[in-house]
Structures are given as C-alpha cells and as structure tokens.
C-alpha cells in the first residue's frame, strides 16, 4: 500500500496559545521574547505584529520602535514541545501514528485512514478546521512522503494535497528551505543562485555531496520518496487495535454497547485467525469535547469469545460518561497470548482449573470486585505459618512443591496473632488456662510444643513455640509462646482455630 503522510504546520503556535489563554490579546500585536547575550530577542510574534514588520530574531528594542504599544511576554522553556504533544494526542483520533515535529509541526501517518472521513480532502478539511476552530493558525498538506508534505504545508501555494508520485513536480518550484536543510547549506545555495529545489534536483549526486555535504542528498531523496523516513510516534502503536469512528456522536448506553460489540467482533476474528486470545483490553472513547474516557477489562486466560468479553465490558459501560457524545471508539488489546486449541470434553470428570467456564466466571467476578479480591494459594517451603503459602500468579501455575500434611495446621488462621493471658504452671508446658477476648478457657488436652524458628535471613525476632490445645468445651486452638519461657512476663498469642 502506498504510504500517505500529512504534515501540519502551526504558523503562530506560541502566540496563538497565548491568545487562546488571554482572549483580550486576540488581534493585537504582541511578541514572546527570551534573553540572549544580554538582549531580549523575539522568539515568536503574533500575526498583527508580523504585519507591522516585526519578525523573530529581532531585538525587543527594535520592535518597540516599530510598534509603540507592543506587549512582550517571557518565553517559557519547552512550551512548544508541550503544546505540540497536547495537539498531537488530540490528533490520534484521526490516525494512530502521530509524531511531533519541532519547532512547530506535526507529522501524521494517514495511510488507510482518510477514507473513513470520505477522502483525503474531507479528512484534511476536518482536521484543519478543528484546529482553526480552537484558535490555532494551522496549515496542512498531504503527500506520499513526509518531506514533500512538510514542504507543501509551509511553502505550497496551489493545492495542499499532492497526488501519488507527484511530489517531484510539487516541490521543484519551492525554495531550498522547504527541504529542512541546515542554515549554512541554505546560505550556500542562495549564494550560488540555486533559489528553487528544481534548479539542483537533477544534479548528479556526487556533485551535490561534494559541495553541500550528505544531508542535502538525504533530504532530497526523502522528499522524493527514494529513501524511507521514519517518524517516531507519540504513542507507540498497539498491535491489536480496532477503530470505530461514528458519524453522529454516540450518547446512549445502547449505542456504546453496539460499538463494543462491533469492535470486539472485528478484533476477535482477527485474533482467532492468529490463534491468540485477549488477556487485557482497553476501550478508549474520544468525546466531542476533546476528552477521552476509557474502560478496561482483563481476563485470566486468553479469550476470543465475543460474548464473554462483551459481558465483561457490560459491567463497565455504566462507568463511561458520554457527556455530549462520543465520536470515536478505539478498542486496543495491549496484552494477548497464544491459546491452545480447545480440548473437547471426553470424560465425565469436572475439568478443574483449566475449565473455560471457570476462567470466564473469574473474569466476571474480577470485573466487579477487582482482580485483587481473587486468590489461589500455592505452598512455599517455609515453616513460618505466614510465609508457608503464597498467592498464585495465574490460574494455570503448577504446584512448586507438595502440600505438607505431616504437621497439623488450623482451619482458621488469624491474620495477625492476638495476645492472650495465660496461666502456665511449669515452664515449657502448655498453659492451664487462657483468657481470650474476656473468655476463660480451661485447657483439657494439649499437644506440643512445635518450635518454629524465625528465618533470620528474612526477619528478626523471637522463635515461636506452638501448642495445639483443647478446652473443656471441645474447641481446639493454636497457641504459641513468643521466645523462651521467662519468669517475668512471657507473651502468649492465639493464632488459629482447629476444626
């Protein structure tokens, strides 16, 4: 497919921005200046100021002589880049690949995008009119190469849209500055009387290289399409993405549902043919008022089932605020994974953790109560009770080691051991009586102690001597003494309850 690029040039980027922020500045002469070698040099001038003959590079003192009521503002470091980034992000609704072109432009890869807006002319008009409505003096051009589009956006006089393979004739009458050359090269070309690109376009490459260096050749070849030019997108493109622009802004939940369904159907059929499934998906809704709202889902295992993914999004629809309406939906799948072909159920046995319906159920629960609320535990080779299990990362994660059953562990474990008061008659014997939550328990039978040493390489502190005890009611508890028996106040804790 022939690549198509669009370049947008903001003629008065910084001054337009100030005029938008301070409407009283509109249609007045003002400049932005920065100190340089002790003088204030103008870095940007508004359109009325330019019409009075003020241009960038002038000193403020000279400009004041031209225009008496000139307002001067201090330049802000990196402001242009910030503005361009903001404008670029806004343009992502038109194409996924948007790049910043300092000091005052944007480059957009529009390959395969324009027909969604009814052709390149309507597409260009839409973008430029939107930017102008915001208050930015923007010019745009479309061509086969970034170089040609850049040149036409700034120096074009005839048509902003250059047909395929017509870039040579379009730029031949333009000045060399349209090739994005260094100032010295431009100066040299001017001295030699080469005032249009056409005048040196046909010269042999060796001649040009010898006189002007390599850069002029690269730029020329890039503009003519003999050499590729890479642009660095503002937002890295997502491999799996579907876009749905809407003719009319969508405001209703039903509309959003239909949009999600369409996007999912497209994305899932693509993924299914690749043998992959969605693990994480994000729906981005671009609104008429320029804001973007998004909703995300994630699954426990790759899925390309439209109905399941739609159900997950169904829980999120209420969180999407359409406000004045949504004009573009983008569905991205930042995380996909290869999925095994489904095994048909052969046996009557329950399929266990590999079951698809279980994965779908957990996705649904996670959508409502959060993925953190769901946990599965695997054994870890630690004796310290709190460390003897850990949460499994995935549903499929296999057992790292066997579950130990040789030591009796309580069915209910307190998240944090609670202190108890005890009466122990003999050191290193289980207590006779303990008081937990103001209730006195007389111990009838006891097992223990089971000493569990603290893992000194992990944390500091006393070891624990655990006792399994049974009181007169028949309730069984897991108690421990922290550290060795000590006549003056050994601390006892209750940690769990046995069945």
């Amino acid at each position, binding site marked *: 497919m022939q690549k198509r690029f669009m370049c947008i040039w903001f003629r008065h980027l910084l001054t337009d921005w100030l005029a938008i922020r301070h409407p009283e500045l509109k249609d007045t002469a003002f400049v932005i200046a920065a100190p340089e070698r002790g003088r204030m040099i103008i870095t940007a001038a508004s359109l009325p100021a330019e019409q009075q003959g003020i241009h960038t590079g002038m000193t403020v003192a000279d400009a004041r002589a031209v225009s008496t009521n000139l307002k001067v503002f201090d330049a802000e470091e990196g402001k242009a880049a910030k503005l361009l980034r903001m404008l670029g992000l806004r343009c992502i609704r038109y194409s996924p690949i948007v790049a910043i072109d300092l000091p005052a432009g944007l480059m957009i890869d529009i390959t395969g995008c324009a027909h969604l807006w009814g052709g390149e002319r309507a597409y260009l008009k839409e973008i430029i009119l939107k930017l102008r409505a915001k208050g930015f003096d923007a010019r745009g051009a479309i061509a086969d190469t970034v170089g040609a589009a850049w040149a036409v956006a700034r120096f074009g006089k005839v048509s902003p849209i250059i047909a395929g393979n017509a870039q040579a004739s379009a730029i031949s009458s333009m000045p060399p500055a349209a090739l994005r050359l260094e100032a010295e090269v431009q100066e040299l070309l001017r001295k030699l009387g080469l005032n249009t690109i056409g005048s040196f376009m046909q010269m042999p490459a060796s001649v040009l290289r010898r006189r002007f260096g390599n850069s002029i050749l690269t730029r020329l070849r890039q503009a003519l399409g003999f050499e590729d030019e890479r642009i660095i997108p503002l937002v890295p493109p997502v491999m799996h993405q579907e876009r749905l622009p809407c003719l009319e802004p969508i405001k209703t939940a039903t509309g959003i549902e239909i949009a999600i369904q369409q996007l999912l159907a497209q994305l899932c059929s693509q993924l299914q043919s690749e043998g992959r499934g969605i693990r994480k998906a994000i729906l981005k809704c671009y609104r008429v008022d320029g804001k973007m709202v998004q909703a995300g889902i994630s699954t426990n295992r790759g899925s390309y089932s439209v109905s399941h993914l739609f159900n997950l999004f169904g829980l999120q629809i209420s969180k999407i605020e359409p406000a004045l309406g949504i004009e573009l939906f983008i569905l991205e799948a930042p995380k996909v994974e290869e999925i095994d072909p489904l095994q048909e159920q052969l046996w*009557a*046995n*329950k*399929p*266990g*953790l590999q*079951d*698809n*319906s*279980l994965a*779908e*159920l*957990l996705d*649904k*629960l996670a959508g*409502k*109560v959060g993925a953190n*609320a*769901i*946990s*599965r*535990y*695997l*054994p870890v080779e630690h004796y310290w*009770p709190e460390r*003897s*299990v850990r949460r*499994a990362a995935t549903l499929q994660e296999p*057992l790292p080691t066997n*579950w*130990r*059953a040789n030591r*009796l*562990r*309580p*069915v*209910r*474990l*307190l*998240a944090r051991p609670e202190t108890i008061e005890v009466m122990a008659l003999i050191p290193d014997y289980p207590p006779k009586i303990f008081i937990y939550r103001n209730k006195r328990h007389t111990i*009838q*039978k*006891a*097992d223990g102690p089971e000493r569990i040493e603290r893992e000194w390489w992990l944390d500091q502190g006393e070891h624990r001597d655990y006792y*399994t*005890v*049974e009181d*007169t*009611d*028949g*309730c*069984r*508890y897991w108690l421990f003494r922290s550290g060795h028996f000590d006549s003056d106040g050994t601390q006892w804790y209750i940690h*769990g*309850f*046995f*069945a």
Partner: protein
Amino acid sequence: MSDTRQNIISKLQKDILLWEGFRPPSSDTAETFGLGPVEAAFPNGVFPTGAIHELLTEDISQAAASGGFVAALLSVLMRRGGACLWIGMAQTVFPPALKTFGVEPHRVIFVNVLHEKDVLWAMEEALKCTGLAAVIAEVRSMDFKQSRRLQLAVEQSRVTGFILLDAGQLGNTACTARWRITSLPSEPIDDLPGLGHPRWQVDLLRVRNGKPGSWVMEWADEKFISYTPALQQGILIQAG
C-alpha cells in the same frame, strides 16, 4: 390392591420431590460421602449434591468446625477433579489445613469481597458455573429471596453450595438442609496423651423431605467415623 396403592403413593412422593427441584442423582455421578447414618436422613438415603446446604455458626470456633466439616465433604465432591470457590469478606481459612481433610488447597479459589451483598452476588454467579465442584460462602445474613435465587441457580447447574451463616440473624430460607457443627472434646488415640481426631456434634436441624437428627462424627484417616447415639458406651461403628 394395596400393593398398587403403595406404588402410586411412592410414585407421587417421587414426583413431588421432582417438582420441588430435587433430582435423584443418576447412578454414574452418585458419590459416597461416607456419612453413614447421616445420609439416611436425606430423601432416598443419599446426600443431596446440587443443592444448597446451610451451616450455622455462632463464633469463630464453630466457624472452624464448620470449615473442617465442609472441607471433608469437599474432598468427596472434588474427587473427580474440578475446582471450588470459597467466598467471604475476610479470609480466615488457612489453605494448608484443607490438606488434612483431603482437599488439594491449590484447587480452592478464595474470593474476598468488601460488601456483603457482593458475597451473595458472587455466589449466585459461581453457582451458575457448571465447571465448579462446589461453592462455599460466608455471610452474616440472608433473606428468603436471596436463598431462593441460589436454589434456582443450583437447580440449573447441579453445583453444590454451602453457606456458612451467622446463627444470630436467622431468617426463613429455601435451603435444602440446615446444619450446625459443634466441636466436641476429642478421644485420645490409643490412650496416648494429647489431642485425638477432630470430633464434632453434627446437628441436622432441618432437611427438606428428610428426617432431622443429631450425630457424633469424627474425621480420622481421611474418612468419617460416626458414633451411634449410644456413644457414651464408646461403641464405634465404621461408616460406609
């Protein structure tokens, strides 16, 4: 004559059970829980799977006893594979302990939610999922409508549900059986000092179309051992 009348009555009784949502287990899925005399209390003498069981808990010791009893039942339900969901508001179950009751703890998925209504919502969703062996939920209270919803869900999916319910705020519910499990002092093993096997007083307070009763059960060597009401004499009857 009397023989045919008997047939008609028993057939009608079976029909009523079917209309009430009770389905006799087909022979290939029938599990033996080894509950012995307790199973006889249920219709057809079979522990009802694909139904909702309620376990009343008063305090954390009773919750622990109920947890152990349910885990012992789970070991049978999960024998043919399958996973189970344990839904609650704060997790107190210590997974390694389930191994004692014959359950593989890594096949139990714990869901801990913030709000009580989410517990019942999650339980209902989980009960609709045929891929699960069982679902356990811990709630403080439940009204009749909520229990009816759960009952309708299990009638479709045949998943067994257990609800650990706070005994304090008890209402009318549509559950198949209502239990109360209380810890009892254990008997020493071979006259050795220390604790014996976990022993419970199992009260079946309510059972649909069955006979409520009370038994003493012990979990030893991965199976239930039940003691007859004449337990004071120490007569031991191996169940199953």
